[in-house]
């Protein structure tokens, strides 16, 4: 699925993540056994196949992955793509099913916290015990937060795998996503600026997939700024096609992290604060759309992520239209 040899190593890691996702999905299905109907059983079988495929693929050398781009195994790719789509459905189903009980667990912990803060509680419970109760409730919150990051990322990752290309107003798409995050960060005085090239015209891409990328980059940028700064979102015509850039005034990326930020599970956030999947998902989607992501950062002076899109629709796989970069 990776268009260039350069990206192939990270594609290998993505496959590893898929294998992990399958394991997680299957474990979830076993737990959700009470819910399993015939439909789920069929999905389970497909999911197991996809897992085996992902595992096998992970073990394939990088050269073979790159070489497969020039191959003619369209049928095999079609089957793989269907497996991934089924796997995506399983992952999304599990994420959905888990979010509600997770929400209820979080609510119960909040209620316990509230009860513990009542005037009567301190006299009813030994102060050492009260302290320990408060600590354990905090741990419940932290772990619910971790699970939430995982399920939300599973939802993002499990979107259907076939890109559907439509003429898309890039500035409008970005505006929609800015609206989702802007209000959240206004309180911290993080200002979102728009710089749109006026005559960019419609871009042929998959808006549903591209929104995921935009949202992830915007959230990362706003979190990097923290407070009192700007996030600038610009659209422009690059040398190879339309682009958009999300630039922040945060601390920037340390040189030693530069090569690792797109790796799945790499994160500089404290444990429990991020899954490290956001940027790897962004790159996987950009690659699927025939584009790529570049990063520009001077430590201490913020970071800029640019999503480069191809000038015309170029589905990655499978299908008759395939790109062959010399």
């Amino acid at each position: 699925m990776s268009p260039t040899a350069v990206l192939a190593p990270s594609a290998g890691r993505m496959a590893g993540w898929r294998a992990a996702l399958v394991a997680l999905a299957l474990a979830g299905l076993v737990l959700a056994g009470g819910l399993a109907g015939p439909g789920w059983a069929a999905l389970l079988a497909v999911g197991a196949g996809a897992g085996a495929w992902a595992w096998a693929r992970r073990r394939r050398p990088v050269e073979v992955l790159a070489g497969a781009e020039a191959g003619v195994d369209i049928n095999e790719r079609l089957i793989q793509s269907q497996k991934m789509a089924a796997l995506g459905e399983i992952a999304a189903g599990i994420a959905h099913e888990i979010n509600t009980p997770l929400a209820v667990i979080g609510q119960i912990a909040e209620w316990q916290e509230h009860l513990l803060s009542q005037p009567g509680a301190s006299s009813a419970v030994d102060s050492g015990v009260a302290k320990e109760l408060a600590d354990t409730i905090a741990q419940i919150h932290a772990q619910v937060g971790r699970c939430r990051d995982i399920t939300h990322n599973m939802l993002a990752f499990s979107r259907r795998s076939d890109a559907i290309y439509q003429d898309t107003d890039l500035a409008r798409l970005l505006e929609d996503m800015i609206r989702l995050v802007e209000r959240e960060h206004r309180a911290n005085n993080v200002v979102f600026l728009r710089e749109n090239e006026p005559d960019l015209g419609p871009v042929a891409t998959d808006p549903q997939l591209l929104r995921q990328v935009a949202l992830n980059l915007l959230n990362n940028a706003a979190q990097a700024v923290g407070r009192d700064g700007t996030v600038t979102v610009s659209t422009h015509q690059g040398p190879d096609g339309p682009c958009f850039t999300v630039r922040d005034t945060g601390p920037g990326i340390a040189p030693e992290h530069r090569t690792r930020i797109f790796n799945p599970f790499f994160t500089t956030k404290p444990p429990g604060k991020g899954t490290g999947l956001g940027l790897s998902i962004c790159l996987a989607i950009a690659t699927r759309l025939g584009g790529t992501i570049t990063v520009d950062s001077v430590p201490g002076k913020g970071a800029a992520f640019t999503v480069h899109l191809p000038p015309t629709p170029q589905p990655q796989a499978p299908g008759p239209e395939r790109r062959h970069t010399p």
Partner: protein
Amino acid sequence: MSDAIRVLIVDDEEDFRTNLVKLLGISPNITAEAVGSGEAALEWLAANPCDVVLLDVKMPGLAAHGTLKRIRDGGYPVEVIILTGHASVDDAVELMNLGAFDYLLKPCSTREIVKKVTWAFESHTGKK
């Protein structure tokens, strides 16, 4: 502004909505009620004053899209916040374009919900 913010929770998950009524009730300036479906929400709104609706996306019967459309068509002066575990960014955009005020993904803290409810209420009273 001294009046309490009247919140209606619409969610088919009973534990979730009864817990949320209790937790929102801790805030002195919020009174919360809950119903289990979009249809029940419309009935409730027809009979009771309300400022902010917290609406789940996937429910049996009338889901969020239908409920939101009918709330808008009915001219109820409420702000709607989407609160769901079943959602995608595309749903979010579609529901925001249908007139939802904001969007929250479960699980999220009650503090977060209170914050958005307050924003929605302020924007709502600003519009009046």
